[in-house]
């Protein structure tokens, strides 16, 4: 891809990647770092990336950066609480959305990523499998489990009350 293609990818996909990351991490600054790292990697490998595959490349890189970031945070155990970080926390306005995103927080990284890639980006099982390095059946099973978990969270007695 050329420089023009790269800049066009920034224009088209930067928001999508950022949304995907910030919904996973719920931390804007970390999300920005990951997005910037993802695009930097795309710029470095722009000669080997075809323009029509730039989006999936970006999501793949961002997903793996997300996994690395999450694992590193868990290992250090210094991860700040999303709720306590009022400045960087993603603000939810509506109650339903807030509950739903709370439910998302109960999922593991893989399930959450699968849900986000499916609902936000509309990727198919196969495309998600390419991004996450999972098989199509794994994607389908993991995603169904995530849905059921979300539903159970939403219809739980605490949320109903």
């Amino acid at each position, binding site marked *: 891809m050329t420089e023009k293609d*790269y800049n066009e990818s*920034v224009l088209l996909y930067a*928001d999508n990647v950022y*949304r995907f990351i910030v919904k996973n991490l719920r931390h804007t600054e970390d999300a920005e770092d990951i997005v*910037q790292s993802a695009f930097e990697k795309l710029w470095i490998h722009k000669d080997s990336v075809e323009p029509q595959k730039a989006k999936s490349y970006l999501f793949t890189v961002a997903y793996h950066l997300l996994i690395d970031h999450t694992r590193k945070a868990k290992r250090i155990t210094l991860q700040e609480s999303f709720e306590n970080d009022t400045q960087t926390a993603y603000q939810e306005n509506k109650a339903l959305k807030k509950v739903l995103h709370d439910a998302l927080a109960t999922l593991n990284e893989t399930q959450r990523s699968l849900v986000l890639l499916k609902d936000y980006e509309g990727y198919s099982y196969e495309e998600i499998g390419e991004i996450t390095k999972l098989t199509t059946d794994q994607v389908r099973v993991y995603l169904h489990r995530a849905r*059921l978990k979300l*539903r159970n969270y939403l219809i739980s007695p605490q949320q109903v009350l």
Partner: protein
Amino acid sequence: MQNINLHNYQDFLLRYIDEELNLREIEALLAFVTLHPAIGEELESLQSTKLDIESIACPNKALLYKNIFPVIVEPTTIVYPNKQKLFKKEREKAPVVFLKWWAVVAAAVFIFIVARYGMFSGEAGKDLSKNNVTTNSIATNSIAKNNVAKPSSSIVNNVTKNNAIENAGLLASTNVLENQKMSTYTVGRGGASDIVTQRNIPTASIVTASETASAIPSYNGSIIDVKPTVIAEITTAPFALNETTEPKETSAINETIDTEAASSNRSVMVGAFEIDKDKFRGLFRKANALFKNKENNRNEK
């Protein structure tokens, strides 16, 4: 296509939410849901897990662009490297030197000498060419006249004389008569013929000897304007001439021509003015006479 039943319907529901069913499966699922309302409620609860698309903008997208939106615009000072070459130094004007009186005199003398030398050197060539033009034209006429009028006994002298005149005129004739070509000029009378070198002009016309002979006596001493159309070829054959009377006339004409040719050397060009040499001589003679008279008076005293 797999049939929907109570054991596998949940998989159909989840795939329906994930939009992974084809049209037939969708129709079959919707038909199955209408048959089982409880499954319809379950479908709604699963649909609530689907995230609504939110438009979240990346806050620092401008940082991601390459070479279009520079992140840090550093103040650049562009310096032209060869600025020293552009500097110009005005040339100093030549100082005005006021000459002293002796320098002015020396310059005037030098200019006078140069002008005088150049005047006389140019004057000589001018006189020479002028005389040659005159003599050449006169020689042509004399040849014509002599050849027409003179018998075979005098033709040798005339030809020799004319050749001499002509040789003198060769020096300047190159400047005046450029279009002339050397050719043989045949002078014939009856059966006898002599070859005389004469200038031939391309546009030569035939002129009778009587015309030439009549033209020469009327020559009044002025400078003859010789043009390239001067007659070069003269035919004398048809004439019947009187041999006894012509030699005197011919010699008189030649003398006249010689005096006229010599008279052209009398003038001297002084700048743009032409002064007769005889007048100069007269002045010098008068001056000498005055000096001699004074000396004689002194001696007598």
